């Protein structure tokens, strides 16, 4: 079957064989009320309150949201306004840890009898997409249309990041358990675990584990960025096309990140909500790249120091991967639910933008067949009709066009600006 286009990147998976290490408890954590896509939570605690691990400290009535839990035991020392990497402001709780890590009485395995109680438990767990997008999991698992296949996204197509890979190597039983749990609860007949071909060990292990289960298929994706993008992974593993304006569920598919699945399984058995996460710390300014498990709210700078980063030389810090991650202005920003990687770079491409030479590389690499060079021209003259015809709204900002441009034009950025010009209906 024909696959969507992609680009070959240097994988830079330096940490793929680095077993996850537990980061020592930091003195202070900062927990924002918005770590997911959707409505930010309201505070349930105030300064001087004592909190325990797993205690709910933020929640809201809106369905499109996910509650927030304390990741440590200690005292709330401040409530501040916090600006995240996207530029949005929400409240954040600063907790000074007491080092005891006492577990809250609220933490107990959920009682699950049917789909409804399952989805309620998923919401209470605070789960959201751990691959980086942070889509609330309880919404994702409750689509309006029938689902016949669930795709477990284990592509991890961005360079550097190995957090999902380590999850697969260290907790394979949680992943298989989670897949079965979701399948049974939602009555989905088939699951596809889609892994990029640059992770042969994981593919081998899971193929063996799912040998006698014909409801779980292990699917090998080509190692071409961006395999993990929702539309790309759906098309490449099932041949289904998610049309403009459609959701994956409209073609009978749910795509869920592999670490999210493993987390859900652990939550169902232990009742411990989403308070820690595994992330890859790497980049050319990092002396000892590592995979780290740490409490949510740990300031990034502590992790960088722990990994022997030469802070004097750091020019750019990226939360997430180099292709779609956000460069952050302040190293004191905390680890949030969606932090799958932390990169510190001392050198990066800063050559000047030159004229478009119309080489067509941006068109050749776009997985969706968009024409970034044409979009850029239409954007410059603010030709909204043309931008509509060029379907700029479909751009998923994977960054492939900017990456290949020999003239260093910021095409992906222009696409996002062009999108904003088109009025929503």
């Amino acid at each position: 079957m024909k696959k969507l286009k992609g680009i070959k990147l240097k994988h830079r998976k330096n940490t793929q064989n680095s077993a996850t290490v537990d980061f020592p408890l930091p003195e202070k954590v900062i927990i924002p009320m918005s770590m997911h896509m959707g409505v930010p939570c309201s505070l349930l605690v105030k300064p001087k309150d004592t909190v325990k691990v797993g205690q709910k400290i933020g929640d809201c009535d809106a369905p499109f949201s996910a509650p927030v839990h304390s990741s440590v035991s200690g005292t709330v020392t401040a409530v501040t306004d916090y600006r995240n990497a996207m530029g949005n402001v929400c409240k954040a709780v600063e907790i000074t840890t007491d080092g005891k890590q006492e577990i809250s009485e609220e933490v107990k395995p959920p009682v699950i009898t049917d789909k409804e109680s399952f989805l309620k438990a998923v919401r209470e767990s605070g789960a959201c997409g751990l691959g980086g997008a942070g889509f609330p999991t309880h919404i994702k698992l409750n689509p309006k249309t029938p689902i016949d296949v669930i795709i477990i996204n284990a592509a991890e197509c961005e360079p550097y990041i190995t957090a999902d890979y380590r999850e697969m190597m260290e907790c394979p039983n949680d992943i298989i358990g989670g897949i079965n749990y979701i399948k049974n609860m939602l009555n989905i007949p088939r699951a596809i675990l889609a892994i990029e071909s640059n992770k042969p060990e994981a593919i081998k292990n899971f193929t063996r584990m799912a040998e006698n289960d014909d409801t779980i298929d292990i699917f090998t994706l080509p190692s071409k960025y961006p395999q993990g993008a929702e539309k790309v992974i759906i098309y490449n593993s099932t041949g289904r096309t998610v049309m403009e304006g459609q959701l994956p569920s409209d073609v009978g598919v749910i795509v869920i990140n592999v670490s999210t699945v493993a987390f859900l399984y652990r939550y169902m058995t232990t009742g411990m909500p989403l308070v820690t996460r595994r992330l890859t710390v790497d980049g050319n300014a990092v002396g000892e790249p590592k995979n780290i498990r740490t409490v949510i709210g740990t300031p990034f700078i502590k992790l960088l120091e722990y990994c022997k980063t030469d802070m004097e030389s750091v020019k750019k810090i990226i939360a997430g991967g180099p292709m779609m991650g956000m460069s952050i202005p302040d190293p004191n920003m905390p680890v949030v639910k969606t932090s799958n990687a932390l990169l510190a770079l001392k050198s990066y491409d800063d050559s000047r933008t030159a004229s478009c030479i119309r080489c067509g590389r941006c068109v050749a690499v776009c997985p969706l067949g968009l024409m970034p060079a044409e979009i850029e021209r239409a954007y410059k003259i603010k030709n909204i009709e043309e931008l509509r015809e060029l379907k700029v709204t479909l751009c998923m900002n994977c960054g492939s066009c900017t990456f290949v441009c020999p003239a260093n034009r910021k095409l992906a950025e222009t696409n996002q600006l062009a999108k904003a010009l088109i009025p929503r209906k």
Partner: protein
Amino acid sequence: MNKLIVSPSPHDENYIKTSVIMLNVVIALVPAFVMSVYYFGWRSIMLTAVCIISCVLFEFICRKLMKRDNTIGDLSAVVTGLILAMNLPVTLPPWIAVIGSFIAIAIVKQLFGGIGQNFANPAITARIVLMVSFPSAMTHWVYPFWYRNPTDAVSGATPLALPETAVDVYSYLDLFLGKSGGCLGETCAAALLAGGIYLIIKKIINPAAPLAFIGTLGLLSAVSGADPLYQILAGGVFLGAFFMATDYATTPISTKGKVIFGIGCGIITFVIRHFGSYPEGVSFSILLMNILTPYIEQLTRNKVFGAKEAVKNEK
């Protein structure tokens, strides 16, 4: 600690810059240049140097006058100069070559906004302007190795100008190796092919346009009763197909468009050669197709994955 740089994603590097692409084109033209020196002597070094230096100089002056950034570092002017030189007869007086460089860089390229903005190929247009302006100087051909007997340097017709009944018609091997009269860089098909394959392997050019060009010309020649191999090997087909019909700025972006472009070039070249009074039609065919490029582009737009067809006359 430094002030952190905040910029939109992606943050990863790509190593192929405009100058790298241009450098690769220069490398691909080296075999043709070396063969031109072998066949036509030191004068070909002189003429090439004049073209390159004057092109770079005109680029520099134009950018300066227009108060734009200096772009000679992207090496595109070097490529234009080199390709222009490959399109000139070795006996051409250098001052005419300088005029050619002026037309290519100042008029065709910079007046339209510089690299990537020109609608016609600078070297091709310059060649055509020179051919029309200086017809005798631009068609004063000599046989290879003429420099060994400078006293009786005779004009040698290009293979295409020979009547088909001529006795001393060139053999395929002569044409392939370039032992024939013609412009500096267009005679040696072998060297041009090597350069073209290099560019294809390096993924600098897409083979669609050259293959469609050469294929169409061969096919039409065969149908019309001409010798297809002779038609392909003689004249400027290889130079045009691999180095000018693949120019980024003046040819369509999509592969489908490139195929149409190549077929168009093949047809026009054939028509000019077969029915026209000019013996050679490669330059004109490329120029004419350059002009059609925006229309081809409109017709060959990519279909976007998952896009709904636009609803017409939507109220």
